């Protein structure tokens, strides 16, 4: 008899409640994620406040700190929880910043090329290729990086002189900032190109034609009219690309050298050959150490930072797009 009630068409309110419950459970799972990560990360904040993020003079060897953490007993003291995270944050800012800026410039230029300048035949081929590139798994980019680019940089670009100049502080093995930024840019640019192209081609052509009719040359028309009109899409593309770059863990772990080192601008060209670590790659590198309380708490604290950064990113993307609402061409 219960089966029969279930088989009759459901009244709306029951369906609504069920669907609402399902949606609520999804929300609950995600909130649980934030809560879990925060709880596991709490000891780090409890023992260090916020100072562990911006320590201006990190100790000579962060690896030493990590080894102390991993060797700490199961009832660690407060002193076991200190770690300076600045080199990792700096590495993340460097790689993400450089990759997004480079990628944005490349994406804008390529999109203008695809939409305005390329013959139709080329466009028909390029757009599916761009979409394919955007969906290539990151481990494949990492594979090409570590098997092709890293040996090239290590064996052909880095000179003995450069190695000597930095000996004692770091070793230049080819796993470097340069390779990381190059591959990261190649990874995030197709996403931006796809989004910007789509937006560019949905701008009513009458807007462009009006500009051309007024005497602007086609490229200028694009700059003056279309690009301004797709600013929300450009912001969305930049935000998406930054989120992808922030979260890229495995590829960076493969090619960045895995050292808690802050590449120093003062080193000139060697700056690009220096190894580094990012927030996400640290989690991958130390993923086995989650059982030791101080090290585990540090990993979760790094994860918390990543979550926080992703959150800040989507909020700022939303805020940047707010004044641009009036330029939206799509509903």
């Amino acid at each position, binding site marked *: *008899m219960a089966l029969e009630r279930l088989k009759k068409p459901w009244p709306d309110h029951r369906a609504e409640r069920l669907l609402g419950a399902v949606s609520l459970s999804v929300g609950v799972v995600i909130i649980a994620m934030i809560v879990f990560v925060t709880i596991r990360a709490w000891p780090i904040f409890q023992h260090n406040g916020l100072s562990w993020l911006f320590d201006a003079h990190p100790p000579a060897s962060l690896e030493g700190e990590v080894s102390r953490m991993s060797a700490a007993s199961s009832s660690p003291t407060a002193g076991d929880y200190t770690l300076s995270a600045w080199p990792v944050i700096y590495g993340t800012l460097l790689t993400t910043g450089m990759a997004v800026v480079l990628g944005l410039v490349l994406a804008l230029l390529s999109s203008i090329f695809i939409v305005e300048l390329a013959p139709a035949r080329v466009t028909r081929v390029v757009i599916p290729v761009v979409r394919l590139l955007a969906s290539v798994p990151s481990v494949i980019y990492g594979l090409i990086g570590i098997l092709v680019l890293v040996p090239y940089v290590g064996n052909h670009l880095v000179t003995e002189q450069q190695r000597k100049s930095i000996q*004692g502080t770091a*070793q230049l093995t080819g796993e470097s900032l340069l390779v990381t930024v190059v591959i990261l840019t190649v990874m995030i640019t197709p996403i931006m190109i796809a989004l910007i192209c789509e937006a560019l081609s949905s701008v009513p052509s009458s807007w462009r034609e009006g500009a051309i009719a007024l005497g602007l040359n086609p490229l200028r028309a694009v700059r003056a009219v279309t690009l301004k009109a797709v600013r929300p899409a450009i912001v969305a593309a930049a935000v998406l690309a930054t989120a992808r770059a922030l979260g890229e863990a495995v590829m960076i772990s493969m090619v960045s050298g895995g050292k808690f080192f802050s590449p120093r601008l003062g080193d000139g060209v060697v700056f690009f050959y220096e190894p580094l670590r990012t927030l996400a790659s640290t989690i991958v590198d130390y993923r086995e150490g989650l059982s030791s309380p101080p090290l585990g708490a540090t990993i979760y604290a790094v994860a918390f930072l990543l979550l926080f950064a992703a959150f800040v990113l989507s909020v700022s993307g939303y805020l940047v797009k707010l004044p641009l609402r009036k330029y939206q061409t799509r509903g």
Partner: protein
Amino acid sequence: MNAIRRRLSVALAVTGVLGVAAPAAANATALVTISGATSSYPLVSLLAAKYVKLHPHKIRFKITQGGTTVGLNDVKAGHVTIADVAQEPTSADAGLDFYPIAKYAICVVTNKSNPVSNLTAAQITSIFTGKTKEWSSALSGATATGPINVFTRTSVAGVLTSFKSLLLEGKSVVSSATEEATEGLMRQAVESAPTGIGFLSNYQANKGGLNVASVGGVACNQTTAASGQYPGVSVFFEVTKGPATGGAAAFINWIDKSAPAKKIIESQWVPVPAS
């Protein structure tokens, strides 16, 4: 009709639940999880595979590798049954039982293009602590030039701890050295760096593709490790929290006493005398 359907579905559900639960209840296969040293991972994996082959359905193994210290932490916290450890017990390991299973030698390795033939103990210490910074002909057989690329292991490695106490007079490796997380990674790093130098267990070092330097005139291989001539010989341990029980005890006993286990150990490593 509906009553029949209802009873049928209830019967099906009950059989389904019983079908899942019964074998699970009757399942007496013990599960032994092992975590720890990357240097003993090949050995322990082979031993576990052989054990399962000889005694099917008794024990199931799950072996991961994260480094000796990770294994020790895991077993202290009760996350795993056995820890693979590649260093001697210290005072911090109270409450844990160490069962030696094999001995291994720590070899100093360089790139194949740089055939360093022999290094004295003093030279090794000076290179790895950063005092000697460049390749020169003073290091017999070295053909590389330029700065020495030192590779070491991350702090959780038992091989590193043993290396420091046996061949580095207790000193630390220079802080600018590149840290590799596992033996496999260390091997690849030295294989691809013409000016590189590192240290590996004899099993990995003698796989080919690397140049193995002698230490103080003694070559680094299984024979010299067994005879006691080679200075850098350490022990692989299986470590449990308190005395080993159940499946873990059976496995460790089997490694200690059985002939097939001895055969596997003797293929690349040095057996320890049975206790």
